[in-house]
């Protein structure tokens, strides 16, 4: 948000166009032009908000490393354990670096409806090292800010874990250098624009009067302008990554021996540890996406508990009905399914809605890794699409349903000038769900097109997969020169 230092404050207006409560949207402010006038009135970030956001940032970091790394690592054969840990950890780090060089600027500064600009290249302008002052990033409350550096760091972890999620789809056969080149391309041309489209807006204080509403809204990202709700990244993170993974599973091809040889997980114990770290870390991911330590953060917090527990139970019940036994892997997968499903809805639905979204997410994910997987026929090694794609889409659509005040949801901000919420009579479940579906559709299409091109480029330059001989021996030895286990 541009709103950083200054633009807040002026008049109140009446109704404007409907703008929605997207979480996470914030943007760096712009110009130094107004700096002086602004300096006098620069708002001081609340220490509680700032502290919470730094903790949330660390929680999301913990989700990726070690959470996701262990969750995925336990699911592969022991000869590929280190390669998965490496791909997750190095992908995450690569994207963090790219984020601070240009990703943050292109995602969260003013540009056009698809991508931002270069105002924050190399994090330029986030603080004044001579004056010792720090730029602010807007939240969802007028006059409430957090240091922009904290916002950028928080968002950096989202970008990083999104890339790391893709790794699961082509685990056990992709060339390490190919993974990294793909990640750089995909991050630049899919993650960054989708994040901008969904989350960039000018911030609440930019809506100073009804006269500027149209102008401010027109500066936001395309999907934000549509009014789609995505609290913590159902589209930006999960659907985006899942589609890239599925495309990768198709384009890289199946693992040698797929369907004939045993590819059973080598350590479901580590998978459980990873899933548990993901669950804990996800509170930073979801509740942190409120950008403030307030009631909506609390709502996202409890919804993240309830939906996850419900999905875990649903997956176990589904497995027990299908084959007579509930499995540990099923329970861990159910937890992740619930976490994914509640992500776009976290602060956008009531607690009852979260429970239902969790139950649907649990059964949906179970279908995703069984029926849907057979239909698709791709070797999505660790079911990135089956869990993150299916549950991400279910969560995104159901957010449009359970956001409704008539179903216990909070609704959305209909008028950012007065911060008035939509009235129950004005809320249309059908209309909101249609908007959600459009956001899902554009994300799927965007990520798919970028992924196809990016994989193709990598294949033509350095090649996507290792030789069959290397694959049989295992990537730990052949790609990294070390073994996870001895003896």
């Amino acid at each position, binding site marked *: 948000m541009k709103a950083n230092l200054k633009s807040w404050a002026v008049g109140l207006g009446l109704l404007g166009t409907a703008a929605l409560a997207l979480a996470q949207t914030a943007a760096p402010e712009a110009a130094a032009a107004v700096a002086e006038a602004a300096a006098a009135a620069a708002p001081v970030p609340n220490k509680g908000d700032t502290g919470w956001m730094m903790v949330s940032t660390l929680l999301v970091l913990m989700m990726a490393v070690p959470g996701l790394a262990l969750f995925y690592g336990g699911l592969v054969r022991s000869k590929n354990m280190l390669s998965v840990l490496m791909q997750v950890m190095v992908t995450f780090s690569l994207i963090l670096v790219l984020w601070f060089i240009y990703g943050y600027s292109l995602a969260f500064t003013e540009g056009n409806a698809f991508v931002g600009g270069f105002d924050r290249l190399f994090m330029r302008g986030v603080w004044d090292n001579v004056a010792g002052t720090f730029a602010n990033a807007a939240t969802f409350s007028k006059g409430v800010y957090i240091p922009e550096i904290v916002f950028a760091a928080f968002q950096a972890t989202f970008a990083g874990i999104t890339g790391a999620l893709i790794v699961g789809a082509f685990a056990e056969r992709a060339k390490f250098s190919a993974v990294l080149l793909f990640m750089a391309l995909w991050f630049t041309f899919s993650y960054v624009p989708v994040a901008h489209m969904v989350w960039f807006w000018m911030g609440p204080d930019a809506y100073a009067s009804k006269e500027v509403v149209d102008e401010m809204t027109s500066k936001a990202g395309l999907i934000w302008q549509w009014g789609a709700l995505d609290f913590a990244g159902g589209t930006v993170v999960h659907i985006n990554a899942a589609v890239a993974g599925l495309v990768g599973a198709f384009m890289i091809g199946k693992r040698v021996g797929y369907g004939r040889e045993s*590819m059973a997980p080598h350590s479901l114990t580590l998978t459980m540890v990873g899933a548990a770290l993901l669950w804990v870390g996800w509170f930073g991911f979801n509740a942190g996406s409120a950008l403030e330590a307030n009631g909506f953060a609390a709502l996202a917090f409890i919804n993240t508990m309830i939906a996850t527990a419900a999905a875990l139970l649903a997956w176990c019940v589904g497995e027990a009905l299908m084959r007579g036994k509930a499995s540990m892997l099923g329970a861990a997968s159910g937890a992740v399914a619930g976490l994914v499903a509640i992500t776009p809805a976290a602060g956008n639905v009531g607690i009852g809605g979260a429970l239902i979204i969790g139950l649907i997410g649990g059964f949906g994910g179970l279908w995703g890794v069984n029926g849907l*997987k057979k239909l698709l026929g791709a070797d999505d090694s660790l079911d990135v699409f089956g869990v993150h794609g299916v549950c991400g889409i279910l969560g995104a659509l159901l957010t449009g349903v359970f956001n409704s005040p008539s179903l216990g949801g909070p609704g959305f901000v209909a008028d950012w000038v007065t911060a008035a919420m939509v009235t129950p009579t004005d809320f249309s479940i059908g209309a909101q769900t249609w908007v959600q579906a459009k956001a899902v559709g554009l994300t799927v299409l965007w990520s798919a097109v970028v992924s196809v091109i990016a994989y193709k480029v990598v294949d033509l330059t350095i090649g996507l997969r290792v030789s069959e001989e290397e694959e049989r021996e295992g990537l730990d030895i052949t790609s990294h020169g070390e073994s996870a286990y001895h003896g």
Partner: protein
Amino acid sequence: MKLVTAIIKPFKLDEVREALSGIGVQGITVTEVKGFGRQKGHTELYRGAEYVVDFLPKVKIEAAVDDAIVDRVIEAIEAGARTGKIGDGKIFVYDLQQVVRIRTGETGTEAL
């Protein structure tokens, strides 16, 4: 001298060892092994992927014994390892040509 080899269920190992100690067997060698017999394997399901596990974990014990006690050794292993259910294992008996205790150089029954 005879070499008695038995494949048994892993959780029966302690009972077999106690039974053998009770009749004066001085030592045995134990190896964790996998195999299949009439018990067959089982299937494992990881999300959508089903794998048939043909080889079940078993324990192989080997004991070199004097001809005089070989029948009692067999009885002791049988008694210790039996559950009555399929998969209890088998006992094999071989003639043993020579035994050497490396430390002392003793041979034959002296080395048992």
